[in-house]
């Protein structure tokens, strides 16, 4: 498992470099990817469904990304895009495609449905946290304005 964690770390870093992430974010991006993948792996290991695992992994990725973004003064996207890559349901998508080729349409459809739901769970996890962070920030600045006014 330690080796796989390291692989998730490396995969995120190299994927990030492909997308031209700023240099000072390279190591943090790897960390985000690794922690996201690890939480996903542990959840599934202890019996959760693939979809919940993907959702939890995405939550972890985006929470850490929000903190790092404040800390390093960078857009959150930098960390999230490469960080969620180890969570992508590639194996399932591949299996779905193979099923369709082999003419097993029922299995193909069920694999595709699982893949789509996992992708949606990842995207939803990311979107939820970023929306919460945005609302929190807006509330804070509104409160500050109220205080200043009176």
């Amino acid at each position, binding site marked *: 498992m330690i080796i796989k964690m390291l692989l998730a770390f490396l995969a995120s870093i190299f994927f990030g470099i492909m997308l031209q*992430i700023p240099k000072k974010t390279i190591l943090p991006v790897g960390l985000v990817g690794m922690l996201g993948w690890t939480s996903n792996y542990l959840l599934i290991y202890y019996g959760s469904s693939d979809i919940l695992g993907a959702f939890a992994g995405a939550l972890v990725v985006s929470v850490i990304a929000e903190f790092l973004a404040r800390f390093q003064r960078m*857009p959150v996207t930098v960390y*999230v895009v490469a960080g969620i890559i180890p969570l992508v349901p590639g194996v399932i998508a591949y299996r779905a495609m193979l099923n369709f*080729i082999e003419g097993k349409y029922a299995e193909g459809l069920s694999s595709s449905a699982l893949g789509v739901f996992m992708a949606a769970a990842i995207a939803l996890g990311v979107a939820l946290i970023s929306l919460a962070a945005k609302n929190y920030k807006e509330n804070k600045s509104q409160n500050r304005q109220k205080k200043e006014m009176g």
Partner: protein
Amino acid sequence: MESYQDVLNIAVYAGDIMLRNGAETYRVEDTISRICSALGIKYVDTFVTPTGMMVSIITPQNTTFTRVRRVTKRDINLAKIAAANEISRQLTSGKIKLEEGYESLRNVDLGEKQYNLPVVVGSAGLAAAAFTVLFGGTWTDFLPALLSSIIVQLVLIRLERVIRASFLQEFIGGIIASLLGILLLSVGLGEHLDKVILGAVLTMVPGTAMTNSVRDFISGDLLSGIIRGLEAFLIAFAIAGGVGLVISSYYQLSGGFS
């Protein structure tokens, strides 16, 4: 003396850089509105989609200016988004003047990518190899995944100079990745065909488009959400189509499914 047209132009330029390099819709709209309101414009309205934007401002003298900016070429360069974001922050907080801001935006826009071609291609290879092992391949699959991903990237970059057609690249990438996988396995490199191909095509996966799509939907930018979602779907479909084409003919030729 700065005119309000200059403010509008610089705001649109900053937004344009961000949109072209793969920023989310809300970030682009936010940047444009912030720059405009910080620099004394009374009213600003933006409409941003992944393929273009419209920005309209009303100055304190009640004149209206509007700009439409079409975006055709899209790429992903997160460092440029970060840099444009930083410049717009400095502009709104008054740390830099308009000309300075325009100059730095130009530098960001026209500047070289921070990682050159060999670095990008090499990392694509290493990322693919890491994915292959992460997704259940063995260490013998490491090398073929590395090689095929590097070759796929090189071919795609060449191809991009000749033709620029959306989704065709991913389709061809899928074809090449699976051909290489079959070739490398038949000479005895690697043992899991599916994992090697998967690693090699994963570097083309539309992760940014997918997350941005849902992000756009949730913040109410329905049109952008649909466009990006469809983009992600079509890219995934193109990759699967390319891989499927090769794999199915390979199975046909080699006699049945194994």
